């Protein structure tokens, strides 16, 4: 087993662990953490594949940088959306 294979395997494991957790949890924060762990797994696969040859593949790494930005923005939006939903839920429960 080479180190690339180790980290590709680790990435796939993270991806699936996240997937499993997303399906078995209901709380928004739990689910978003799971999605992010899953995403880190995918990025890990990509970065490991990028470091296969002599030197590293800049294209794959650049893709991961882009993916990371997308992920953090979407996560931020989702978390704020979750907070807003909870607030409207609370207001509906106790009109005061």
């Amino acid at each position, binding site marked *: 087993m080479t180190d690339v294979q*180790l*980290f590709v395997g680790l990435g796939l494991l993270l991806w699936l*662990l996240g997937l499993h957790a997303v399906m078995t949890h209901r709380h928004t924060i739990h689910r978003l953490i799971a999605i992010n762990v899953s995403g880190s797994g995918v990025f890990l696969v990509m*970065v490991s594949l990028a470091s296969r040859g002599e030197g590293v593949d800049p294209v794959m790494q*650049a893709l991961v940088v882009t993916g*990371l930005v997308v992920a953090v923005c979407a996560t931020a939006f989702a978390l704020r959306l979750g907070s807003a939903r909870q607030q409207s839920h609370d207001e509906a429960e106790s009109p005061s």
Partner: protein
Amino acid sequence: MTADGFFDALLAMLIVSLACGALYSRSLYRAVVFFIALGLSLALVWARLSAPDLALAEAAIGAGLTGVLLLSALKHQAAEPLRPMRPSFQLLMAVLTGVTFLLVLTTVWSMPAGMAQVGQLALNSVNDSGVEHPITAVLLNFRAWDTLLELLVVVLALLGVRQLKLPNDRLPVAWPLLLAWSKLLAPLSLLLGVYLLWRGADAPGGAFQAGALIGSGLLMLKLVGLAPTTPWSHWGIRLLVLLGSFTFLLVAMATDVFGAGWLTYPPGWNKALILLIEVAATASIALSLAMLAGSDHRELNQ
């Protein structure tokens, strides 16, 4: 087993246990702390896999931004009940994912080795790109169209948050120690951000890492109440948020109308144009991320 292999195995073990902690802690707070720790450790993995750009980005995001975001969300959403799924369902899912893992792993095992074709091409063309660092060349020249769209992702996320009826945060008055500390940290993060941006042309770093870092500094100032308010209704704030996308789009259009084609930088201009875009993008990303994570209803919806 070699010493390196031993180190890798330990690192993998660390990551797996952190991930399990983040995913399966019954307490949300604990899960969040685990997740922050996972971000820190992933930076080590990127470092190990010779991806220093990602180590920088992950350190800025995983440690700073996501942590603050999650802690803030925790404050607002702690009331939501956990309602775990039935154990039989969880078991079924575990078996399913386990089988999938084995299938996927055995398939991917046969992945051929060696550098990807496009990666090699990118490395060979770096000298014509205007910058020396290959990843910056990919992001701002070879695949600049992706990056333009990526800047729009940041704008869109902020726009999305702007539509929401957010709870208004009432943060406590910060302790004097914290105030003094923030006054030190914020300029430091600005300094470090500028340094990363400046280095991006020929070494790991660049607009996004710099933006995330400066954004975190700004966010911290917001949290302790030192930052000036950044209301969306002010045209200057909007301009700063949109500056990166505007600059990039105008460059693209100008190169199409006056030059050789959409995003084809004229020879001799490429370095200057890339620098211009990077500076504008850094400013936009920093402000957008800080507002995305830390602005409340009053600031966004006046």
